């Protein structure tokens, strides 16, 4: 009995080790958004490319579209950018939210790397980002035909995440639209 007690620390640690091992394959940054299933928060902002154009929720149109939060200070956004161009070329509407950024720098960026966005709302004080629950850039939201956020994705969108996270939901939305038209 006494001997068994001495094994307890070892058993405890092995149990703990199993969790730590499991933890290596989890992503602590994958945060479900409270906004999933909610409409896009109201906004009224200037756009980056046309300084005097004001956009609101009414300007977000499409059967489904992406809302992509980006900034020129964000290195990961640069990595993501070519893939966004690919997505845009495939016919998906992407609306940008230029988050806490500088308008001149943002325009330069869009000229240099090409512009995948229908427009980029200029969220200079980050208030719209705050309402979206953004805690960094890049983040991408998938919005359906009712203006409801279906997915919030934090991090760089790439081939894999597009296939695994976005495509199934887009198929769902297409099915729902087809069903409602019948």
């Amino acid at each position, binding site marked *: 009995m006494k001997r068994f007690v001495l094994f307890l620390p070892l058993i405890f640690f092995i149990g703990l080790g199993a969790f730590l091992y499991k933890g290596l394959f989890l992503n602590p940054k994958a945060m479900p958004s409270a906004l999933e299933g909610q409409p896009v928060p109201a906004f009224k902002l200037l756009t980056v490319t046309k300084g005097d154009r004001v956009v609101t929720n009414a300007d977000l149109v499409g059967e489904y579209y992406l809302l992509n939060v980006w900034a020129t200070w964000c290195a990961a956004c640069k990595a993501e950018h070519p893939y966004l161009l690919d997505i845009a070329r495939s016919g998906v509407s992407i609306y940008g939210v230029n988050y806490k950024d500088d308008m001149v720098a943002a325009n330069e960026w869009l000229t240099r790397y090409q512009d995948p966005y229908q427009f980029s709302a200029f969220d200079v*004080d980050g208030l719209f980002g705050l309402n979206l629950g953004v805690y960094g850039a890049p983040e991408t939201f998938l919005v359906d035909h009712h203006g409801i956020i279906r997915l919030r994705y934090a991090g760089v969108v790439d081939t894999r995440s597009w296939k695994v996270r976005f495509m199934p939901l887009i198929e769902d939305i297409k099915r729902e639209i087809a069903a409602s038209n019948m």
Partner: protein
Amino acid sequence: MIPELGSFALMVGLAFAICLCIIPLVGVQTNNLTLVKYAKPLTLGMFTFTLLSYLLLTASFVTDDFSVLYVAAHSNSHLPIQYKFAAVFGGHEGSLLLWVLMLTSWTGALALSSKNIDDAFVGRVLAILGMIVVGFMLFTILTSNPFERLLPNVPLEGRDLNPLLQDIGLIVHPPMLYLGWSGLSVAFAFANAALLCGRMDAAWARWTRPWTLAAWSFLTIGIALGSWWAYYELGWGGWWFWDPVENASFMPWIVATALIHSLSVTEQRGAFRNWTVLLAISAFSLSLLGTFLVRSGVINSVHSFASDPSRGMFILMLLGTAVIGSLTLFAFKASALKGTSKFEFYSKETFILVGNVALVVATATVLLGTLYPLIMDAFDLGKISVGPPYYNAVFSPIIALMVVVMGAAPIIRWKKNKVGTLRGELGLIALISVAFGVAFPFVYGGEFIGWVSIGMGVAFWLIAATLKNLKNNVTLSEGGYDITRPTQSYWGMVIAHMGIAVAITGATIVSYYETQLDIRMTVNDSVHLSGYEFKFEGVKDVEGPNYSAKQAQFRIFDGDKEISLLQPERRVYRVQTMGMTEAGIDSTLGRDLFVALGDPLGDQAWAVRVYVKPLINLLWIAAGLIAFGGFMCMTDKRYRAKKPSIAQAPVAVDPIVSAV
């Protein structure tokens, strides 16, 4: 050429370390003293080449060699020179090399100053330390080599050091912390060597204790510097956030605190042997766990290094090998080391044990809070985060209980104490402490706050009981006082315990009585907070060596008298284009006035955050007292005295224990 030499030096160090963990053990097995004596030169060789490797990495930073990937990622030719030295450990790879350097420094120091310990034992201890060094060096070389080149496209400029780290705090905080963390490996190695050869006597505890005290004191300074840095550099106004990474440094500290007390019981009474060994293993295991949490990316934290699963796997293997190995050894060998001394309920042993258990339970609550999100996630029960409310609710009561015991423990006698004498010594002090605690929040703040009463009550109790005990000890039987009568280590204990009381006072007051204001201010606006007037006189542009800043001017008045000009800044570092706040702080012993500049709100208006923090500086003073007390105990002459009769005995029996 320099980076290749650095890489090569590290590999030579690794070769020394591999020899170190084999040759002395073979010597011990075959009774070949010559082989055992190789341990010291091998240790010094290992240390020398690790140091060389570190210096060569530093040279790459100083000469702006951006062909080295790590230098290019963490430095810049415009970085001020002192930060170039600090940038060496500003990222994952270099900080790991610093870890290894610290570890080999401890090993080297042990090799040089272990003349009073018998050779076979030292051989074992150094071999075990060698194994830990091998693990960390392999980790560095295989997954995180700081000398990796960026060829052939050598960048002209580096990406610069993270602006958060460009601060005096970075220069001193990580080395202290790593000294503490890696220093706990010495106690770990001593414990394992004791288990291996079945001798866990008083002599063993006497050898271990000064090393543990040293590591613990450095860890104290490291944690306090981290807290201080977060306080004035992050601009959030807080000094402790229960962030997973802070917890990672705090947990080994609490267990090491338990360990130094348990060691003193083992040293002086021969009791608690298994418990002491288990604490020694736990303390270092927790510092390895901390390394795992910080560097593997399993937990979200403001401090985390860039995560990489292959690194996480490697540290987990390192952690697993060290902990499973030593706990298995413990499970099979520990029972042979049964203590012989007996003690009754009213005795110093019991009180230290209760304090020890409280510390371990406190550690367990912090560990649970730190790992809870991970465990929930592993069971797919959702994402949650555990915040300060949890820690404050569970940690404070346990520590309050511990402090009550802590006040009485030095006074009560070893083995057996009459209940009546304890009541006579401390009864009055206990009553006054309760009265003081209850009255304090009324007098200071005008209303009753339960936790303030408890905090101030236990702090008063601890100070009064410690002073009473000190008076008993310096009083001569023929009357009069002699401060040299108690030992140096007794004085160290008194100072460190006072430090704890000072820390509790500071933490209690600043937590409950700080005042804060988040406000929009335009030029020439004034706000009043806790009797001080803060007048905003506008913002001017300032150019630093590698940043541009908006610097606000605040004149602070106490009544009509101007007391200070505070200049909080918002900096933009040119290379990383990252914004940083630099708070303006006016500090006196009684309070800090803290102003942080927020975002511009247009029309020359700014968001401004103002704090008045009473007695916050007690926290830093307390850390100094605690660490100083630790160093005093460590350098007590009883740890320097040669004990040849004990050291050479095959199974040493401490004279005090054998007399029991």
